[in-house]
């Protein structure tokens, strides 16, 4: 069974890489890593992880597909694939609909062999600093020849505070996959063949450029005659080391997932990720906050205003094609360093530096490579 899965995954990788090469905007990510999984009632097993993600933005939608394989000798083997289409609405740019299909094949010591398929739809409202969603999912699992079905409804809110994201969500599961939940320690007090579960989830995420760190807390309670009470905390993080290479780590307890047919497990993972596709811009620490704006003049052209939030005791300079790339010192105005320049209509490149450090693009401008291994910001003046 495993070789067949590996062949299937290899085929998926091949398709994804070919598609990635054909379309400039496509992105392909490969992740390889190791993990320790402990299913309830069994010793921890070391496992190998292999994952591929292919994302293709198109004109009116974004298509994302991913597959992953987890393998730990005879105790744990799972292959999953997900395909999602993200559709923006015509009537409002703040409405987006996500439609997806996922499938899994597994061979687990705790809950047997089988497969799973599920469909999901989620409606998002996306604001500048906050958003919400409501979703519906349904899935079918076959485990050692016995079929079951699961449904879920979820709703959530998120809000951004600078680099900090907070979100909360409620998910109501209804499942007849009793072997899965039994293996996870969830029982019913009656002879009902369905389990009802309510998950309350709180997520805290810090994002700084390509780096992120996430804490996820879930409180799961059984409803009605279902006896379940789980509290779990998982942590995960991404450290982008170079333009294409990142390290990922995660750990904690994953609760049984009736939608995907996967059981509860304690896990620790470490993996490396390589990205292909459009070359990302260099990773640079944002030690200063620089922003640029243009006040357009009625007859064409405008005034570029760049503000840098930085200490009074340092040297802040600006350069661009408007100064023929000669560095110009910025002036102190209140708590900001400020530079002003009159620009002709057209595209201009601009960068700032602090204490003779790296030249960086103001963060709200489009960033472009500069042929010298760094970056510049683009501003177009009407």
């Amino acid at each position, binding site marked *: 069974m495993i070789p067949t899965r590996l062949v299937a995954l290899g085929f998926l990788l091949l398709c994804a890489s070919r598609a990635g090469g054909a379309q*400039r*905007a496509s992105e392909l990510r490969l992740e390889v890593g190791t993990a320790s999984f402990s299913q309830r009632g069994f010793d921890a097993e070391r496992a190998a992880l292999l994952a591929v993600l292919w994302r293709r*933005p*198109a*004109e009116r939608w974004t298509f994302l597909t991913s597959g992953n394989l987890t393998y730990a000798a005879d105790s744990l083997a799972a292959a999953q694939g997900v395909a999602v289409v993200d559709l*923006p609405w015509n009537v409002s*740019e703040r409405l987006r609909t996500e439609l997806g299909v996922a499938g899994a094949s597994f061979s687990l010591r705790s809950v047997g062999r089988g497969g799973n398929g599920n469909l999901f739809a989620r409606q998002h409202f*996306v*604001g*500048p*600093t906050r958003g919400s969603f409501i979703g519906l999912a349904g899935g079918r699992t076959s485990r050692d020849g016995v079929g079951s079905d699961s449904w879920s409804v979820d709703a959530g809110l998120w809000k*951004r505070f600078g680099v900090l994201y907070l979100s909360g969500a409620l998910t109501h599961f209804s499942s007849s996959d009793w072997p899965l939940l039994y293996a996870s320690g969830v029982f019913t007090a009656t002879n009902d063949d369905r389990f009802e579960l309510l998950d309350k989830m709180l997520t805290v995420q810090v994002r700084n450029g390509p780096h992120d760190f996430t804490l996820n807390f879930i409180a799961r309670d059984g409803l009605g005659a279902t006896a379940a009470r789980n509290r779990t905390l998982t942590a995960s993080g991404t450290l982008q080391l170079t333009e294409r290479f990142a390290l990922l780590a995660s750990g904690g307890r994953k609760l049984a997932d009736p939608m995907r047919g996967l059981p509860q497990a304690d896990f620790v993972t470490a993996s490396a990720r390589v990205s292909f596709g*459009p070359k990302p811009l260099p990773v640079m620490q944002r030690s200063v906050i620089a922003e640029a704006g*243009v006040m*357009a003049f009625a007859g*064409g052209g405008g005034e570029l205003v760049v503000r840098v939030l930085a200490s009074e005791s340092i040297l802040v300079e600006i*350069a661009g*094609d408007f100064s*023929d*790339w*000669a*560095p110009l010192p910025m002036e102190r105005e209140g708590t900001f360093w400020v530079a002003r320049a009159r620009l002709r*209509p*057209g*595209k201009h*490149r601009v960068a700032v530096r602090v204490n003779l450090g790296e*030249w960086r693009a103001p963060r*709200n*401008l*489009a*960033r*472009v*490579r*500069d*042929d*010298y291994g*760094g970056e*510049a910001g*683009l*501003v*177009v*003046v*009407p």
Partner: protein
Amino acid sequence: MNRHRVLFVALVLASVSVAPALRAQGSRVLGIADARARAAVEREIAQAEARGLPVRPLLAKAHEGVTKRATGERIRVAVASQARRLEQARDLLAPSPSEAELVAGADALAVGVPAPMLKKVRAAYPAGHSVAMPLDVLTELVARGVPANHALEQITQLMTRGATPTQIASLGASVQADVAAGLTPDAALEVRARGVMSLLPSPAAAAALAPRGSRP
């Protein structure tokens, strides 16, 4: 005198003439410490000038390298790359692109806009109308992460509907404001392009208003 000899003489004359020209402009290319690298940069610029390319954007590229403390060799490579892009843009924007159009085309190629798209932008405006601003906005949108084919479609639609360069530039500024407010660049472009489009005459009216024979 055959063609190669003419080109050789032109190169020699240009390389002789460019150094005094740089000195006259107070060029900071002369500030490259390594004399051999400085001479190599001057030679690249001279060769480009001999091929009929504008010198100003090449000097700007070299000055950027001096400011960013790049090595002389790296500056030479950057200048040569810029010259190649300018030459490619000249072919794509034929028959007679202005310097601003060449620079806009070269910068578009530098951010990854596929070469055939430059031809499409050129074809979307009547001959004689500068496509520098539409190319600049296309470059900015692609640099923001908007898929190039989507950005091209929106911009060429605006151009064929008779949008002015100022209206197209405003589209870029509006997208920037929306992105700062949290929208994805793709969604912002979609919404803003529709807004500009609503101010323009219908395609049929635009065709009727266009002077006969002005469309390529």
